[in-house]
């Protein structure tokens, strides 16, 4: 039985070898490995599972490869709206944020809701105000923009427009 363990995911979907270039595949592998190393470094040194979860997710939130944080997809209105949650298995405490647009790392805000408020979920402007009060970094919404996601948004908008007009 291992003394500690960590598993991560970066999303599921229509991910095939045909849709991936070797370079992009390499980027994903390296970033996932970086996330594993960030979390495992904490666990190996006796840190908590909560710290490890946040460290691993922060790596993926900061990467434009994944649909969270920088690299989040766009809504129909062309903005980024992010959600996150966290739960502690020791005491069943939980925290979440929904519909936030300026929190750089939403998982840290979810943790702050869990640990520093009597609530489980905060949403929108209130969640952002709370995060700011807790010293969590807020960024301009342009931080989340990536060309790749914007192009996906434009394609989806075009498809929706064609569907609307038959």
């Amino acid at each position, binding site marked *: 039985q291992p003394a500690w363990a960590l*598993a991560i995911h970066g999303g*599921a979907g229509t*991910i095939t070898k045909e849709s991936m270039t070797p370079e992009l595949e390499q980027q994903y592998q390296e970033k996932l490995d970086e996330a594993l190393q960030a979390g495992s470094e904490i666990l190996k040194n006796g840190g908590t599972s909560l710290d490890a979860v946040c460290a*691993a997710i922060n790596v993926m*939130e900061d990467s434009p490869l994944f649909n969270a944080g920088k690299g989040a997809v766009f809504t129909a209105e062309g903005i980024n709206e992010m*959600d996150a949650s966290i739960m502690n298995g020791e005491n069943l405490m939980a925290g979440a944020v929904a519909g936030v647009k300026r929190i750089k790392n939403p998982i840290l805000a979810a943790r702050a809701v869990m640990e520093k408020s009597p609530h489980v979920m905060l949403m929108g402007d209130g969640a952002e105000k709370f995060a700011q009060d807790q010293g969590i970094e807020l960024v301009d919404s342009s931080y989340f923009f990536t060309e790749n996601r914007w192009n996906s948004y434009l394609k989806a908008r075009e498809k929706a427009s064609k569907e609307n007009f038959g």
Partner: protein
Amino acid sequence: TCGAVALDKHGNLAAGTSTGGMTYKMKGRVGDSPIIGAGTYADNNGCAISATGHGEFFIRNVVAFQINALMKYKDLSLDEAARYMIFEVLKPIGGEGGVIALDTLGNISMPFNTAGMYRGTITSDKNAEVKIYGDE
């Protein structure tokens, strides 16, 4: 969406999930990621779960909580419980996605019913392993 589940040296589980939602989603739409019990759950008496996929299906079927409940109350193994929810409950109704699951014994299960899922594991006795496609 991205997520992580961890077991520390003190025997405590944790789970977290973070997402940008679905491309071109309706403004204000919220998926399963921030819903405790749907996309995220952790219980030292069961398991830690983080989900990714079509959120509405994960919310209606309370997927993360159900995996934990199947372990606690029906005595299923982690892998049996996780696979049951992904392949027997979600797949027949068109609920696409997957979960990463971890119990206090360090067992890991990562079932998904899509073509691929970006995923990785590392434990105190196994080196890091990263996989992407379904046939790996």
